[in-house]
């Protein structure tokens, strides 16, 4: 029922950023909760290499320096053992949250704003990734990638308060072998998004589309004489009896979403969907799993 920001000029977006910054602690803590609950140590390279986590003991070879020998393990038997750790190489993951005015909306005051939910999921992901020694970046906002858990505050801040446009998204996510998570409601439709995604596809980056929607956008629970306005308030559409439009609208909505899904699958990308009245944990798990398993190994 509440819509705060209708205009997209500079002062308005500054206000919006301030507004977002105010919510930063709450959103960050929510993200932390999800990240710890959902994924605990489920990320690694599954091979030996430089890292901190124990991987295996192996017999010492002639070229191993004496300092590499694990004397404690070796004392159990006659052979000498060397302690190997798991390889933990880092990769860059771009996290992009749609900050268009449409995202700053919720149908009921007890629901989170779509942009908040998107931010929470992305920050939670960034926490997990940084803990796993990946590098995280917000395209168009971050000056440099964040590495290690120490950078988590900065990245979280950039995700929550940063306002990155679609143009910045396509220009800044250009590193090969990198990964990109796009959290948006994709309400602009396939026609707008297809060129953008094509541009991104050319860089060979691997992408996950996270579709965030409000329950009212899916179910259209409106009745009676209703005047609908766009998020910026500039466009108005009058409905004499809104309930009559429901089925047609719902059909349109799902078609549009399926088009986006199709677009993702054509490129071999992941498509995840989330409704803001649902628990964010499952979709986050899927998100995290798909990054660690499907894409990064």
């Amino acid at each position, binding site marked *: *029922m509440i*819509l705060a920001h*209708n205009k997209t000029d500079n002062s308005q977006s500054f206000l919006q950023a301030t507004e977002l910054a105010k919510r930063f602690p709450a959103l960050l803590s929510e993200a932390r909760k999800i990240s710890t609950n959902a994924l605990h140590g489920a990320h690694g390279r599954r091979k030996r290499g430089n890292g901190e986590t124990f991987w295996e003991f192996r017999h010492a070879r002639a070229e191993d320096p004496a300092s590499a020998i694990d004397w404690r393990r070796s004392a159990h038997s006659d052979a000498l053992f060397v302690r190997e750790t798991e390889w933990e190489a880092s990769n860059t993951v771009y996290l992009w949250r749609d900050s268009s*005015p*449409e995202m700053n*909306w919720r149908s*009921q*005051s*007890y629901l989170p704003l779509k942009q908040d939910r998107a931010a929470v999921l992305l920050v939670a992901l960034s926490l997990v990734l940084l803990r796993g020694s990946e590098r995280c970046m917000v395209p168009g906002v971050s000056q440099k990638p964040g590495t290690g858990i120490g950078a988590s505050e900065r990245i979280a801040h950039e995700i929550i308060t940063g306002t990155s446009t679609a143009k910045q998204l396509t220009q800044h996510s250009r590193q090969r072998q990198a990964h990109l998570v796009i959290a948006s*409601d994709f*309400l*602009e*439709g396939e026609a707008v998004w297809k060129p953008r995604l094509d541009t991104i596809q050319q860089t060979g980056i691997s992408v996950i589309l996270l579709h965030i929607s*409000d329950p*009212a*956008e899916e179910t259209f629970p*409106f*009745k*009676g*004489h*209703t*005047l*609908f*306005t*766009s*998020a910026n*308030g500039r*466009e108005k*559409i*009058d*409905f*004499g*009896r*809104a309930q*009559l*439009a429901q089925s*047609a*609208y719902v059909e*349109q*909505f799902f078609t*549009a979403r399926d088009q986006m899904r199709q677009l993702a699958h054509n490129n071999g990308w992941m498509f995840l969907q989330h409704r803001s009245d649902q628990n964010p944990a499952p979709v986050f798990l899927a998100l995290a799993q798909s990054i660690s398993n499907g894409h990064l190994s």
Partner: protein
Amino acid sequence: MSASLIFSQPILLAALALLPVFWWVLRALPPEPVLRSFPPLRLLRNLQDKTNSPQSIPLWLRLLRLLMVIAVILAASGPIWVPADKTNNDKPLLLIVDDGWASADNWPKIKAGVLAYIAQSEVSGQPVSLIFSTKTQPGNQKIEFSSPPKLRQKIKSSEPHPFAPDHGQTSKRLKDASTKVFADKDLQIVWFSDGNDYGQAKQLLLQLQEIGELQVLQASGERAIRITSLHSKTGGIEIDLTRRSANSVFSGRIFAEDQKNNILAGKDFVLAKDQRQVTVSIQLPLEVRNRIGAVRVQGIRSAAAVHLLDQSWVRPSIGVLAARSRNSDQPLLSERFYLEKALRPFAEISEINLDDDNEKLPQIMVWLDTGKLSQSAFARLSQYVEDGGFLIRFAGPLLAEHQDDLTPVALRTGGRLLGSALGWDQPQQLAEFSDDSPFFGLDSTALINVKKQVLAESVAGLSDHVWARLTDGTPLITSAKRGNGRIVLFHVTASADWSDLPLSGIFVQMLNRLLPMATKPMSEQTTDGKLTNALQLQMALGADGQLRLPDGNQDVLTIDEIAKPVSSSFPAGLWSNPQTSLARNVLDHLNLKPFPSVPASVQLRNLETTKPLQFAGWLLALAFILLILDNLAIMILAGKLPNWRNSDISKTAATLIVFTVIIGGQSLPVKAASFDPFAVIEQTRLAFVSTGNKEIDRLSAAGLTGLSRELYLRTTVEPAEPVAVDLERDDLSVISLLYWPLIEPVTLSEQAAAQINMYLKNGGMLVIDTQDGGLRAISAGGVDPALQALSMQIDIPAITKIPEDHVLTRAYYLINEFPGRYAGAPLWVEANRKGSSLDGVSSLIIGANDWAAAWAITKDGQEMAAVSGEIDSQRELSRRFGINLVMYVLAGNYKADQVHIPALLERLNQ
């Protein structure tokens, strides 16, 4: 006629004809769209056309709105339900309304009644005439039948007048009219009488009976209370109240006000059933009494329930004969100085030069020992006394040598000298006053040391004139009537030369007793024509008993008019001229009799029972309710009603409910035990004074509960739950510590005050907490008003700020601050540490730090109130103070003995 429904504005009913139009408009107007923000607007663009025909208003809502409009139209047309009565409405109607002060209290009822009769006649098409019975302007006297709207206007714009109806004049007007206007008409007459007879009621009654069928309507006289007279007496005033009828009990309150309507004093009175009169006396110090401007019965809107007082009544003016004072170079030793010191609080003192003929002589003249007056002045003064003046004279060396005949008794030449080096006698003191003396009852033990006096010739009948004697029997004050007046002679000087009398308090008291003897109502004083200037109205008294600025239609009041009742030209109020002021009340000089018994053919009915019912208000209320329903309906239709299952509103409501439960639950458990002496004896209990203020009592109980818990945890004192004490009822003797939150002045009954005194004397401890951090004391300029009021009632010993080494600072903890919710206010204890019977334990502790708040805990042990945080760990320190306090109460000066421990140990070693 039977009961009927009448519309006072029937023309407005025509608006009902517009209802079909309204119905059509309602049909045409669709409900307002709901504005919704909806981001996926793009998806809606294609769907727009299908659903664009708006929903129309449902039938039931249209009906509801129609009903609302009907209710408003009906209400506007002013429907009146007139109950059935026995009058016929097929005759011309004559309405007579008493619009004097006695009707003011019932004026709205009278108005409604008149309107109902007018409406009734309008329906039946009979002519109506309306006359008021007060004396009105000549042009307004015509009696004629006029149109109902005109009459309605007339009664609506009329107000009761602050003087009495003139039934004689009314009767005359009727007589004139009966030949012309009412000629050979059979009239129906309704007389809205105020229930009083001003002399000609009987005559009017008979006359009315002749010209038509008469009905008399009177309001019940239970509330028709009049202040019939008011007089001063020693220590206060007495007010006589009368009411018109006495069929039920009436309890009311009477107030004395000053000129600015500030209430000075009040007193409740009760008129029992069948009791018509009561005398109420209000005790007032003279200084306050002097400020009274009016006495008023609370809640009665009538000029008769107000009695105005003028300056002459309250504050006598005293003239001092001007003289060439011998002591003018030493003003502080002059007689004038002592006299003014004594009289200034109670009277206006002015200097009078008798040789100036223009000077008006006040009610009281004082003649100090100024020596001989000029011939003419002396003659004038003698005349003044003869005419009713009051002359107070003081003796002195000059009077002792040259006597005149303006003394109450003959004097011996030469003064009498007592207690001088060569004299035989000691200075004399006052003897007891005899019971016929006006000074009877004053304390005669004051030392006045009369060293010199003038002596009266001992002649037969001397003792009749003596008001005060010395112990040897010689007169000190004598008095005698002279003509209409009186002379009082003090046989000593008004200065301290001859005696210490002018230095003593009894001098003031004596003069205070003398002043009322001289004060007489202005009207009595002026009957002999001494009042030369006419008076002008300063403030007019309205019929409702309120003082207003005059409207300027009044004449100046001359002497001849003073003794007549108030009228439209000379209304009640405060009149004045530069010299004096005069209060005229509506009852002055008015011969008021009960209403004559009516003949059987006349109906006498109570005004209240015939009251017609106007229900426009109810219709408006209905329309308003319908409006609310309509708004709700619109919200439902528009889908704006909040989702109750899961919305903020339901959350808010739930929060509120939970909150209420918590608050309610909180207030319950910390309830103190009710007072039972045995329970207090069985277990130590802290006690607090129940103030009657729920919030404070709750905090006191919670505070002592908190303190009890701390005691239980930290010390061997294990108190049970605290008790609330009602000072008026409960036995204090079993209580060891009594906490008293004193936030406003209290008035204790004598019994309660005595009990507290006994409690303090017998080892109890009273902890008084003004709970304001000392703010009230500061704003009142030093002493808390509540404490001040209390100290008048109980014996508060001398108190002092707590000394640094007081036992209270080390009875359990070592503390040097005594914070509660606040920390800054000083703590006061009894000053005399050795003197009391309690081995130096202070029986009284006074502070302002609101300790109860700092100690208070809920049932769950949560602290209830925040502390000001002026000092570190304020809460803990406040608890420590509480524990020290209880230890001090229970163990007394035990800790104080420990200062001797080193000495004792040393002795043991030896």
